[in-house]
């Protein structure tokens, strides 16, 4: 594939991610932070996010499986997840977390479980999308092109 085409594809893909609301401004900021000193910054942070999120999700699963659900703990986990997801700009995960927290306040176990599923789903989605994106990037780099910059100055 032609480098230019790939670049365009990358841009289109990124745009679709924004338009569909998977990512937001924050991700752009991450991209802007990436420079010669930290060439793999975005990937690094995102994989950090993946690790962190998976751990948190596991914890959440565990916490909600317990007989007496400790909502404080659940809330703290969700809060963390929300913080990290918003930091990389995974908007839909963040929104799911916000809903989750509301139910935590209500101490509604059933709704919490539902939300957990939703968060998981959103997380998987964004993970897949991001992985695809990174794959594209790798291909571009491998083909000798550079990642085009995009600017969404909200």
């Amino acid at each position: 594939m032609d480098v230019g085409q790939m670049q365009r594809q990358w841009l289109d893909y990124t745009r679709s991610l924004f338009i569909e609301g998977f990512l937001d401004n924050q991700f752009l900021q991450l991209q802007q932070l990436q420079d010669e000193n930290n060439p793999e910054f975005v990937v690094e942070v995102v994989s950090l996010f993946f690790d962190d999120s998976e751990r948190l999700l596991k914890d959440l699963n565990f916490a909600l499986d317990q007989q007496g659900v400790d909502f404080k703990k659940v809330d703290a986990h969700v809060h963390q997840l929300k913080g990290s997801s918003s930091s990389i700009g995974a908007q839909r995960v963040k929104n799911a977390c916000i809903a989750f927290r509301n139910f935590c306040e209500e101490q509604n176990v059933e709704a919490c479980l539902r939300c957990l599923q939703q968060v998981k789903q959103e997380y998987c989605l964004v993970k897949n999308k991001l992985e695809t994106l990174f794959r594209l990037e790798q291909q571009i780099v491998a083909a000798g092109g550079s990642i085009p910059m995009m600017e969404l100055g909200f």
Partner: protein
Amino acid sequence: MAEDRYETCSEGSACSQMGSNNKCKHVFDRLCGFAPSWNWNTTTTTTLPPPPSGRRIFHRDVEKEAFQYASSSHCLSSYYSVFVVRLAIMVMLAILIGLLTILTWHFTKIYTTKSLKTLAYDLRYELLQRPILRMWNILNSTAEITTAQVKLSQYVIRRYSNPVNQAEQVELYEAMRAITWALFSSKKALNSITINYKNGFVQAFHRDLKDNNTSYIYSDLSNYSMVANEMNSFSAHQAWNDKAIHGNKSAIWYREPLDPVTGDKIGKAMKIAPEDLINIAGLSQVPDGVASWHVAVSKFTDSPLLSAALPVWDSSNKSIMAVVGVTTALYSVGQLMKELVEMHSGHMYLTSQEGYLLATSTNAPLLTNSTKHPTLKMAVDCENEVIKLGAEWLQRAYGNHSPPSHEVHVENAKLGHQQYYIDSFFLNLKRLPLVGVIIIPRKYIMGQVDERAFKTLVILISASLCILVIGCVCILILTNGVSKEMKLRAALISQLEARRKAEASSNYKSQFLANMSHELRTPMAAVIGLLDILISDDCLTNEQYSTVTQIRKCSTALLRLLNNILDLSKVESGKLVLEDAEFDLGRELEGLVDMFSVQCINHNVETVLDLSAGHIILRGWCEYPNSCNGSPIFPLEQKKSRCIQKAREKQNANNEKRTTKRDNKVILWFEVDDTGCGIDPSKWDSVFESFEQADPSTTRLHGGTGLGLCIVRNLVNKMGGDIKVVKKEGQGTLMRLCLVLSTPTDVTEQHYALDFTDNSLVVLLALHGNMSRLITSKWLQKNGVCTIEASEWNGLTQVLRELFHARSPVHNNNNFDAHYPVTEGLKSKLLSIQDMKKPVFVIVVDIGLLDLSTDIWKEQLNFLHRYFGRARFVWMLNHDTSNNIKMEIRRKGNVLMVNKPLYKAKMVHILEAVIKERNLELQKRNNMIGPRTTTKEGELHEFLEIDSTHFDAGSSDDSDTSETVGSNPVSVDGDKQIELVARSPASSTYKINNCLVGLTNEHLEDTNNARKEESCQSSPSSSKHAIEESDPKSLSTKEPSQGGDSECGETHRAAGPNNNVVNGKNSLEGLRILLAEDTPVLQRVATIMLEKMGASVVAVGDGQQAVDALHCKLGVDDCRRDSLQKERNMRSQTEILTSPYDLILMDCQMPKMDGYEATKAIRKSEVGTGLHIPIVALTAHAMSCDEAKCLEVGMDAYLTKPIDFKQMVSTILSLTKRKTS
């Protein structure tokens, strides 16, 4: 009887009451209209059901009413209850009054009647008893006299028994006459005494009661022989008797008047016919030898006589010697009756058992005057009407069969037209039974009583009726009040209901609006993002680029509009909370002028801001109450002022502002004056209501929904002000509003002592708008700047020629005058200019002066370019000035371009730029010419341009509520604030750069680069100042950031498209930052961000570690100081280093120890050391209460996640700067 009457009466009254009740009820029915239950009650309570037809009508009415009130059916039950209560009260009242009436009447009437009746009975009895007693007396006395006569006669006759000769016979008769006289004279009441001897001789005394004559009557003796009369046999009796009565017809009787007292003969004896005068009792009257009684009549008396006859037996009791008869007149009985009746009225009569009248109380004759004999009359034949009627009545009632006791008591006998009492008594004498009847008119006894009773009854009934009517009316009125209240209450309830509904619906509306705008924001964000992508694309042509930029601006405006709609719904729901923030009135006004200038140009209106007194804020703070800024009132077309009204910041060129200071409060007065169609005074109040417009036709002409003024009023009221329409002379509307604002307590009073006199500036104003040119020129002259005005191209060329041609070749004024005729004013000005030493010319040219429609403008530009070296050109651009022209102008080396409108701040910037330029020019030759400075130059003039274009963007948004908040435009959109404040630093930047490098013209074509800075809305340096200089002392406090700025310039070119990131790259150079963040992702991101800007970051995972890190660092702080100092260049020399970190970024929610706790611990450890390490909170909670909590525990600032790059940098800088300064 009376009882009966009474009953009927009471019944009648009851009936009448009921009747009145019925009427009342009908009235009620009409009044209340509700009836069914009520009517049923009526029918049950009243004996007379209402006529069916009326009832049907009534029902129809009811149905109608019910239909009418169907909506408020729940009220019906209460209505019913009201009517039932009414009815009950009325019925009770009626019953009460009826009872009262009946009882009163009963007690007054019954007892009197009863007692009177007994009395009357007694009276009647007594009255009747007396004549009967009299009668009895008469009978008794008659009997006594008779008996006495008989006894005496027996005695005398026995003595002279068997008279042998005539002499003895005469002697006997003489003796008899004597004793008879004695008896007769002793009893005055006697009518006569007769003695009829066996032989037929009659002796009699007669008293005429009328003329009181007494006479002696006797028969002729000669006719009787002694022998012939001697008949002893009983059988002979009959013959004697016959002879005595019938055989004596031939006998001659004599009548001899006597002296009534003495009995002496007073007259001659006269012959009379036998039995002519009196009845002589004969043997026939005593056939069985016992005493007999009968009633006799005589010709001479008109009253009946009672006669008694007794036989005189001989000594052997075998033969009757003579018969003695005594008659007594019943006249005295009648007399007594008359007397009694005279006293008591009424009539009495006495009859025999057969019905013959014996005595009456009247003077009516008792005897019939028949031709032969007077006979007794029957009572029914009596001439007296009453007696006759009474007798007839009695006969009718009882016939001939009188009751066994013979006593009758009748109380209500109707005789004729009157009612009478009739009583009869029976006196049962053996020979002469008598019946006494008394007829007394009822009126005599009961008349008064009846009358009184009737009157009482009438009064009682009328009184009770009155009371009933009044009571009913009272009840009606009272219950009417109650029902009215109930109706009102029902109405109130329904209204409340309606209001709740209306509120709910309006709530839905607002919510819908809010939701809609919220939903719209997301796609708008995408649009803007995509536009940014497009802008970042390098392959756009200039036209495309400008178009896209325009779209971007519009999108931003649209987004802002959406935000404003959100704000609007916030205002409407009353949830808008105003925040106090400082603002500079002058800048706000200038911003407004910028905002509206585009619109104004579209409407062909000139916008002028005249702050002739200088800085408006100073005016606000000065001590004169109501000091007037004296800006001229411009007649603006109405549409324009409407726009301004909508923008809700009511200050503009046509506004008159007055400020009053009171304590710490400032009252800002605004006046909006227009020359539009005006508002009718009656609508002055209503125009402020929602959806109210002064005239419905305005909607057609000018559009609008009528919401603007309502929101304006709400906002003004919220700011503690007041808005009203005031009377205006002439056409149009004048609105006045005041705002009460508090002045900042720590006001650093700044006065721009703008004085350009020393700089010997000459400004040539070549502007289209007369007013703005005039004002600008006035203001400039006031500040010591010489101005020349020109309004069109020819004027400009003329002035230019005069200025430069007159000067440059030779200082020769003579030629000048000859060639160019100029006005006197201009000439004098030119003269004064010529006196100046080295004047600096600034030519402000309106782009509109050029002929843009054709290509002439290029030549015009070339013409002007000839003066380029000698004067500084400042170009006033229109907002729609095409890029070609701009490029061309720029190519010619004109770098000063400002967008219209021109106002003071812009002018000041221009002049300052020019002055500095000139100053630098002097040094220029000695300086190195660095290529990068040109960049800076480009940055400057672009900056000016950008600055104003942003206002353009704002101005297209004419319902911008964020501006409306008046005193705090800052809080709503931070971007704009930064822009606003950044304006003055920009020029400073310019100045500083020039300081280093000076101005060259060679690199001016470097516009491409400059263009990219379009989005550089706040370069780090300016944002730095923005924070630092929230008070307007920006121009003077520039020095500390010099180094940073130059650095900025240095890296500028390398930054490429990512200007806004890279620009601030090293702004945090040398800062040591401790980052406490548990989320690894965030930790990493923040670290990179900070490091990118040159800060050194130490990241820790929780609060405890942060506290520990701080403490252990504190220990080694001293030894590290040197190396740190190297890093941080000049800055460290002035700074007192006591803390290992310059700043801590603290996440609030962390495991082990959260941010609040950690902050508390740090602040605690700082106590006594005098240190204060700035701590910035990082939190995902975007609530203001979190902010409060953060500040409470000792944090200095507050950042929300996800971290906004610019905000973080500005926050950090503001905190570290503060420390430095």
